[in-house]
């Protein structure tokens, strides 16, 4: 009998040895600074990512033309040591610093930016933020690919075959010419062909070097008698306002004066990428730590999926003497409670976003915490109406619903230090005064409902509030809004919870009545909140399409005088807030928890914090940069 148990015992000890071995593989020297980077990053390719966890990594391993100041997010020299703006505000000339290098030691030049920006705009790259570069002349058209083309345009044609001697993943051979006509393939009826379906069922007649040639976009090389197959057909990139006249000069030409352009071009998505690296390895292999070539203060040492990304100080970075930490760990810790536990037990030094529940506790802590200081953020939580659906197409109904809300109750019950918002644009943007929506006024709300034909809520179809699962707060707020609307207006309200992916699908297809949404500003300017509601903006998702509003946003884009431009934007917000396709609920506050010995960390409107400015000061006795502006708590208040 004993002998029967022996193999089991052997298996058991072998298994345990295996466990010990696996665990040992994960053993590491501790980093100089570790923080909770929330979730796993989507990629290390700056062009294709979106989101804050990605931003923290991309901004550390790459450096864009400018750096954004950690305190006020204004543009400071980055790879460009200086820049000049033309008188009409439309041409920016960037002087690339001569000591800018790639992590492989090669110099970084203006051509690298030309390559980066072209790739960023190329529709096949799939850049989520490509729209941020549409301010550049021709950029919008270029990024729309074949469907943006018109007869007479200068075009570039990418063939399937690569030029002699090109790298494995380089672009195909390029031809340039003038587009003469776009013709539908024979055999398709009008109804079958979607508008703008140019890449699939159309051929293009192009004059190349004086010779008329017909091209057709195909997935794979597939030669034909009628036309020549090609991979893509785009606007000729020389029509786009990006030029590198010499290795140390880059010129960007804008459609209209865009005062926030330097800040925008410092956004992580516009970080330079290395052409040779990408063309050698292809996507996504070039982003693997063993292949990637970067230019920022840090390099990726390794990426352990779901565990961490380890960053080490780059020996080739031009400003390496100013970088303090040698090793930084960006930990993947999904659960906010776990992040907090690991912070409290000293495993990490920064939690970027504590949960609302913990935030309440931290704010009520006595004595006050030396490491928690919520600051206003450029982000608005709002409810959106589907204005294409009755009765929400009636502005009186929308106004009534907006006026029957009690934001103070919402924040007291579901919030954690947020500020009630009555404007779409959050406060804090220099030179801009946010314009409020109709005030909270229940009597007026009831009167408006009666005027719209629903006295006392009679005959008003049931309202359904759509929100996404995953955050308890959304549910609490939806329930509160339901209670307030039912009580104040006498209508019936229901709620619908959808999982994130389904929710996005529903909102983008306008398959809702009232939906919970939020918007985080991309740059410190009111435009980032207002152009959202232009009729043709993909993120509008309310069905709101007001010609007067669209004109105002366009007029603001053309205006060269800064003060006048702000006036126009304010007028636009006034219009938006009187039409109320959206009801602002609250302005977000940051919820960073930062170790008191960490310096070089400031609260800012975008809640975005570069890692290379951080340093540790163990001798520090007073408040650190982060806590400097903390308001001493009043007795008995939260």
């Amino acid at each position, binding site marked *: 009998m004993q002998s029967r148990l022996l193999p089991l015992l052997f298996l058991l000890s072998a298994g345990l040895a295996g466990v010990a071995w696996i665990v040992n593989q994960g053993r590491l020297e501790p980093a100089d600074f570790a923080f909770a980077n929330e979730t796993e990053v989507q990629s290390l390719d700056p062009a294709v990512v979106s989101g804050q966890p990605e931003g923290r990594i991309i901004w550390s391993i790459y450096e864009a033309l400018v750096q954004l100041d950690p305190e006020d997010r204004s543009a400071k020299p980055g790879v460009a040591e200086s820049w000049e703006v033309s008188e009409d505000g439309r041409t920016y000339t960037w002087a690339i610093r001569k000591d800018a290098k790639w992590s492989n030691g090669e110099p970084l030049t203006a051509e690298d930016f030309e390559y980066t920006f072209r790739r960023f705009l190329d529709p096949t*790259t799939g850049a*989520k933020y490509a729209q941020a570069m549409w301010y550049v002349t021709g950029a919008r058209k270029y990024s729309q690919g074949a469907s943006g083309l018109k007869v007479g345009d200068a075009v570039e044609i990418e063939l399937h075959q690569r030029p002699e001697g090109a790298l494995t993943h380089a672009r195909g051979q390029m031809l340039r010419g003038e587009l003469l006509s776009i013709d539908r393939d024979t055999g398709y009826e009008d109804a079958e062909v979607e508008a703008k379906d140019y890449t699939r069922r159309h051929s293009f007649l192009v004059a190349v070097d004086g010779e008329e040639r017909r091209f057709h976009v195909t997935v794979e090389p597939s030669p034909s008698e009628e036309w020549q197959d090609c991979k893509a057909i785009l606007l000729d990139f020389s029509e786009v306002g990006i030029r590198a006249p010499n290795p140390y000069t880059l010129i960007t030409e804008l459609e209209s004066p865009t005062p926030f352009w330097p800040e925008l071009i410092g956004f992580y998505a516009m970080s330079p990428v290395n052409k040779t690296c990408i063309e050698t390895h292809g996507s996504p292999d070039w982003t693997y730590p063993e292949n990637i070539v970067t230019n920022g203060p840090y390099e990726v040492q390794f990426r352990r*999926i779901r565990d961490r990304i380890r960053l080490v100080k780059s020996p080739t970075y031009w400003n390496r003497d100013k970088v303090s930490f040698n090793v930084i760990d960006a930990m993947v810790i999904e659960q906010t409670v776990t992040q907090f536990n690991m912070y409290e037990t000293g495993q990490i030094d920064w939690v970027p976003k504590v949960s609302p529940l913990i935030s309440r506790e931290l704010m009520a802590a006595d004595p006050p915490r030396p490491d928690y200081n919520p600051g206003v953020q450029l982000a608005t939580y709002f409810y959106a109406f589907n204005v294409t659906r009755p009765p929400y197409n009636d502005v009186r109904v929308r106004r009534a619903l907006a006026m029957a809300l009690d934001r103070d109750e919402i924040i007291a019950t579901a919030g954690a230090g947020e500020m009630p918002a009555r404007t779409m644009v959050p406060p804090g943007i220099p030179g801009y005064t946010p314009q409020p929506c109709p005030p909270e006024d229940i009597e007026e709300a009831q009167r408006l409902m009666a005027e719209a034909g629903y006295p006392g809520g009679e005959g008003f179809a049931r309202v359904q509030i759509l929100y996404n699962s995953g955050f308890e707060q959304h549910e609490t707020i939806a329930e509160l809004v339901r209670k307030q609307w039912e009580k104040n207006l006498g209508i019936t309200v229901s709620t619908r919870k959808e999982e994130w992916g389904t929710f996005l699908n529903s909102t983008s297809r306008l398959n809702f009545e009232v939906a919970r949404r939020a918007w985080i500003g991309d740059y410190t300017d009111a435009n980032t909140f207002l152009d959202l509601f232009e009729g043709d903006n993909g993120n509008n998702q309310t069905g709101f399409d007001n010609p007067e509003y669209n004109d105002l946003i366009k007029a603001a884009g053309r205006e060269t005088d800064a003060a006048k431009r702000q006036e126009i934007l304010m007028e636009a917000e006034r219009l938006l807030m009187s039409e109320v396709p959206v009801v602002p609920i609250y302005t977000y506050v940051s919820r960073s928890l930062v170790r008191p010995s960490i310096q070089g960390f400031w609260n800012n409107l975008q809640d975005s914090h570069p890692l290379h400015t951080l340093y540790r000061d163990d001798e520090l006795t007073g408040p650190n940069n982060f806590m400097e502006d903390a308001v001493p708590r009043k007795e008995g208040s939260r």
Partner: protein
Amino acid sequence: MIAFIFRRLVGMAVVLLVVFGISFALVNAVPGGPFQGERALSAETIAALEKQHGLDRPLLEQAWNRITGYLTGDFGESIKLGVDVKDVILQGLPVSAALGAMALVFAFTLGLTAGILSAVRRGTGTDFWLMSTAAVGIALPNFVVAGFAILIFVFAIPLFPAGGWGTLRQLVLPAMCLGAPYAAYVARIARTGMLDVLSQDHVRTARAKGLSYRSVVLKHAMPTAMLPVVSFLGPAVAGVLTGSPVVESIFAIPGLGWHFVQSAFNRDYFMAMGLVMVYTTLLYSMNLLVDLSYAVLDPRVDLRET
């Protein structure tokens, strides 16, 4: 035995194919897609991305590409993480397996000891307390157990770290929390099995021959009493692996569990499908191993006949 294994392997191929078919249909039936996000993408970009991932092909062609991919060890590329699904599995599976193995070791040592103890001391206070604790252990979900374990062993008595991966100490708490309900099950099963064996003739004979009670229990009764426990192992492995997303995320452990859940939310088609296939293979082979181990533990089992 070899014929038995062969038959089961053929069965596995069929099961995998059916699982593939169902999950492929489900993945494609869910509303939304991998390229939908807070920021709307232009139609041109979505078309380019779909082309890049081969999602513009007819569904049957996509299914065929997947199957041939799996056969050659190519699991495709995660749409959301920009890495090969194979790399995700190669990095995550050992971690999940280590955690699961520790949890099972914990469940078996603790459960078996408690079960045998309460069987031998049937009707006493020890029996009562052990079985009551087991009942509670079964009833409590592991995130509740984890909450208490963290409060006690991280904050009250700082013995273990709050989370992370890289040392054996970081593995103790999660393994305990993951294993706790299984320990409780094992205790109850072992107790029943032991009581059953203890009342059988061969045990009485052994006692009559003058062997000590201790040696009768450990040498003669235990191997047979363990049979029901071993047959519990199959489903337990299943539970430990699929039950780990919660524990892995509470303790920030870089296992596969999180991907399993998140890939569905993200509509990361290749990741979700790849993980389903890996889990199916894993569960099927675990059950096969359990069946094989019967032959070792119980001489009455003859695999040639089954």
